[in-house]
């Protein structure tokens, strides 16, 4: 048991370090390090501009989307090399957040289902950050129950005509392309009548409306489709096979592993050490110590669960189910930590101005962003179902919609 690189891994790490030392945008290091949770700080610079510049620089030198084949803009690297890259990229990885959905989910889906011509055309620009992609899956009537979606696609000559609405689409407002899942047959059970496409977000008939989030930002949008036309060659997978295609996307969503998900523990520990209460330093408080111990155990557990996954990758194996617990543990831990940090601060804990609040208001940002972690990309409840069913082998839930044609499934008032 050791944490050492193999000789090949060490050589690769050295190469990565050398390149980063010579090329990383060091002028952004300081603001990036002081970023609040869910909020990338690049000082006075324009976030999109610096993100695109860094991505392009990486791509030109062969450090973008490392695990993709070279002909699609990647490096043909092994999974472990990708992990080493992300460990070394460190704080600059925050500059990749606008590309994450496109490169992490849309890219692999295109790789698996698009034509060779499309792959060679679209993937290199997705890798280099010149074009940004979004994921048009969730709808008002289909989130956890994604297969309950209603956006219609109807064949008209060589085109498909799309009508309907997507919601919670992150980055739709700055995206160039998107992958879109639609219903092509409402008369068969819901999982069977779906079809996947990709399309330009500039297509006539698309209207994008930003949604204001709990934390005041507008990262996600409503996207309306009115008679939007998509040529049939932009279909991904067969007609009616959209569910299968979407599983490729969602699997990639849950496969991203690295240093373990952040929980906010190091920040909280630092606050507890430095914060003076009327009874002395907060960290001497017994009740708080017990909670700190719990959060440490979770954070460290995630860190070394990631190490176990990386070891599996290093041996050329697929990581086991331990990779699935990260978001589930990190989301609630972060929310607990944020509440405890505000509790220490008393009424001042309510303040969100970085000049007035402790720790540059990062715990307030955490409080207001952490609920989203527990929802996006599979809610806590859905993740528990996945662990119970796929890892522990327990039976599926009872379902009222099984084998019922989609257009006969009961719906509620909130749909």
């Amino acid at each position, binding site marked *: *048991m*050791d*944490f*050492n*690189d193999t000789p090949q*891994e060490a050589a690769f790490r050295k190469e990565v370090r050398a390149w980063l030392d010579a090329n990383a945008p060091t002028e952004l290091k300081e603001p990036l390090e002081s970023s609040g949770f869910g909020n990338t700080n690049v000082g006075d610079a324009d976030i999109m501009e610096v993100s695109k510049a860094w991505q392009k620089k990486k791509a030109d030198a062969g450090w973008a989307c490392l695990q993709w084949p070279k002909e699609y803009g990647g490096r043909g690297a092994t999974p472990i090399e990708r992990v080493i890259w992300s460990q070394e990229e460190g704080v600059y990885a925050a500059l990749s957040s606008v590309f994450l959905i496109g490169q992490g989910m849309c890219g692999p889906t295109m790789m698996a289902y698009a034509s060779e011509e499309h792959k060679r055309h679209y993937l290199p620009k997705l890798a280099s950050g010149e074009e940004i992609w979004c994921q048009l899956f969730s709808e008002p009537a289909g989130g956890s129950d994604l297969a309950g979606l209603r956006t219609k696609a109807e064949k008209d000559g060589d085109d498909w005509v799309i009508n309907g609405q997507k919601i919670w689409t992150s980055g739709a407002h700055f995206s160039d392309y998107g992958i879109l899942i639609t219903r092509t047959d409402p008369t068969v059970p819901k999982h069977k009548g779906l079809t996947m496409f990709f399309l330009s977000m500039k297509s006539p008939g698309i209207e994008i409306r930003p949604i204001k989030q709990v934390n005041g930002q507008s990262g996600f949008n409503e996207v309306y489709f009115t008679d939007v036309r998509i040529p049939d060659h932009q279909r991904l997978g067969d007609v009616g096979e959209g569910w299968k295609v979407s599983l490729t996307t969602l699997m990639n969503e849950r496969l991203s592993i690295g240093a373990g998900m952040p929980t906010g523990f190091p920040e909280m*520990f*630092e606050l507890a*050490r430095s914060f003076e209460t009327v009874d002395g330093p907060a*960290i001497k408080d*017994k009740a708080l*110590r*017990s909670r*700190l*111990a*719990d959060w*440490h*155990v*979770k954070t*460290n*557990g*995630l*860190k*070394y*669960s990631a*190490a*176990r996954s*990386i*070891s*599996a990758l*290093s*041996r050329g194996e697929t990581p086991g189910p*331990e990779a699935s*617990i990260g978001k*589930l*543990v990190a989301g609630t831990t972060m929310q607990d930590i944020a509440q405890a940090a505000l509790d220490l601060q008393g009424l001042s804990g309510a303040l969100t101005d970085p000049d007035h609040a402790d720790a540059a208001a990062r715990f307030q940002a955490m409080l207001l962003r952490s609920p989203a972690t527990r929802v996006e990309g599979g809610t806590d*409840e859905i*993740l*528990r*179902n996945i*662990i*119970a*069913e796929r*890892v*522990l*082998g*327990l*039976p*599926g*839930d*009872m379902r009222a919609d099984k084998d019922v044609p989609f257009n006969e499934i009961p719906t509620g008032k909130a749909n």
Partner: protein
Amino acid sequence: MNFEFSEDQKLLKDQVRRFLDDKCASKDVRTVLDGAATYNESVWNGLKDMGLMGTAIPEEYGGSGAGYLELCVIAEELGRAVAPVPFSSSIYLAAETLLVAGTEEQKQAHLPKLAAGDKIATLAISEHSGRLDPSTLSLKASDGTLKGSKSPVVDGSIADLAIVVARTGPSPRDVSLYLVDLRQDAISRKTLDSIDPTRDLAEIAFNEASGELIGEPNRGWDVIEKVFDRGAVLFAFEQLGGAQKALESAVDYAKERYAFGRPIGSFQAVKHMLADMYVSAELARSNCYYGAWALSTDAPELAEAAATARVAATKAYQHCSKNNIQTHGGMGFTWEFDCHLHYRRSNLLALVIGSRSQWEDQLIDRLEARNAA
């Protein structure tokens, strides 16, 4: 990076599991639960025959010198089987104390017998209710003579030898360690009833008993702290093994037991409870592996890693064992089903070498020390 046990270590684990499945099944644990015996001798003899007690004891002292990673995988299996044997007292605690503080002569004299499993030793510290702390200890030693009593001592009725923490000076940490032969007239012992009758707890009275000093006088607590760090990792593996087994038993039952015309494992309240048990066991496993790495390399991180593993595994075992009963419903509360074996053991292990809240406190101390450095 290779944050996994090796193929050889996995083979050892399988071998120990096969032995325990065969010779330390529920009925064998129950001979101690229901009977007069304080431990299962045939299980002990089987472990002895496999040479497992000497796993982390160097060859020059009669062990196999295989190492701590090997001892960790054995501990996990012993925990899984709720083994009713004094392995932890004799090996994780007493043998380790000798390794840490014994003179060459003392090691030569005692370790080979512990390594062979021919003698059983334990560590005697507690005297009162409350936290384990040297300031609370009053059993006195002077000129190699011990007077006072220890209670409870784990495996106290079974052990041939005890390493006793005795007061030898006025300031709170002035305690020293003595190796005491428990088979002398000046010793009387009484077996005590406990929440886990599959393990032995006893009161030992020392009426001018003779003992042999181990380590420097008045520095006994330094040794105990070192031994506890090592022991914490090993106990954590026992707890992990138990947590894993309790989880598996709950999952199996949830698939077979039907209510309202469907398996209870299809009700989300049950499913999600089981998913949470899995998460806590998985976090404990990763923390235990980190502890194993620190123990086997004697890393500077050991104190922190040991406390982390100990807290994580204590929680996981308590969490999994109580919800295993819950999953079994009324059956879970019967003497006949095995759920209570894990419930008992998890709550006993949570108290040995310092209880959970004490370890939580220590963990934070250690994180503070690291951050101050």
